């Protein structure tokens, strides 16, 4: 590694360490700068290992919140980056564990599917099987239904939906989360 790169990395660590130390003393401006600096760094660290942009966003958010909670455990006499990367690693494992657990729970064995599963809903004697879901979606507000349909059925990302609907990305995520909760409460989680 070139000497200039090493010195850049060391100075960045020193800078983050100073900012964290000031943040511990209640300096909101230093804290804001620290979190703003950390965000692209954390993103660059986690992005290659995750499947999509939403997961990256979720993990970066989770890391920033963890940095906030763990701030008292940092001491200025230690390098900042190993402390931060431990949190990143921990939260990444947490996210992936939840992801795979959910994927496992939602997985359906091929044996459990009826023959010609793709044609299942088109058979006349199965008509109405999905009426509950349609009715539940119908009960949502127009905006909520549109956001949910775009993101969960049509496959748009949160960012794309946010742009189309003129909302913030976090508002889109909150809306989808609430819709899912509502559907679950209506007994549609199975």
């Amino acid at each position, binding site marked *: 590694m070139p000497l200039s790169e090493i010195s850049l990395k060391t100075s960045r660590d020193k800078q983050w360490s100073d900012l964290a130390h000031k*943040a*511990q*003393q*209640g300096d*909101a401006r230093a*804290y*804001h700068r620290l*979190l*703003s600096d950390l*965000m692209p760094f954390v993103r660059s660290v986690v992005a290659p290992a995750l499947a999509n942009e939403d997961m990256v*966003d979720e993990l*970066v*958010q989770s890391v*920033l*919140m*963890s940095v*906030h*909670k*763990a*701030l*008292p*455990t*940092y*001491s*200025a006499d*230690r*390098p900042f980056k*190993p*402390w931060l*990367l*431990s*949190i990143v*690693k*921990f939260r990444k494992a947490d996210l992936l564990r939840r992801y795979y657990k959910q994927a496992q729970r939602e997985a359906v064995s091929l044996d459990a599917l009826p023959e010609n599963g793709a044609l299942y809903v088109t058979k006349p004697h199965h008509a109405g099987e999905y009426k509950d879901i349609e009715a539940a979606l119908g009960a949502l507000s127009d905006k909520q239904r549109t956001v949910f349909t775009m993101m969960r059925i049509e496959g748009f990302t949160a960012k794309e939906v946010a742009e189309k609907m003129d909302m*913030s*990305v*976090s508002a889109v995520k909150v809306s989808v989360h609430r819709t899912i909760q509502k559907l679950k409460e209506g007994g549609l989680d199975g």
Partner: protein
Amino acid sequence: MDDLIDKLGAELKPVRPLIAPSRRMSVWMLGVVIYMLVIASVIHFRADLFDLMQSPVMVVEFVLALLMAFVSGYAAFCLCAPDGYGRRWPVRGAFLLLALLSALLLAMFILSPEPIAHAHLQWHECVAKSLAFFVVPIGALTYMASKGASTQPKLLLGMGILSVSSMGYIALRLTCPDDAALHTVIYHILPYIFIGFVSGLLAQRFLRW
């Protein structure tokens, strides 16, 4: 994301950095020693305590257990920070001491002339004593550890349990007059493995953050 940063910034309050692990461990260990001495006094120390301390094997056993208690306790408090204070030697040291103590106990067990003697006489008493020596110190450690932010909560609890078990093991040896190897293994060690496992499962939830 900017909203989140603004929100976190608005929530910022001055925080006091966590005290160094050596100091936190010293406070906890002092409490544990006092607590165990009080409990041991209530239970009564064994009558042949002075003779017991003349045995070199016993001294080695006690020194190893004491070292293990300190090193694994220190490891537990280091693990309260996400990066473990950048120190790996305490965990390695604790495992090394555990291996040495296990080897010593195994040798004592194999070489014991009458390993089965008195094995069933005091099991209720010793299991109850194990509980008495264990529950409060591990509860205190879990509480203190919950003030940190561990990224290895299982290892932290494992180290804590090892530390408390070592201290409890010494306390049991000082109060129980039965030195038979089988008795030691079944009633002085197995209860700690069992209680340690159960308490580890229970305590994990307190270390989530």
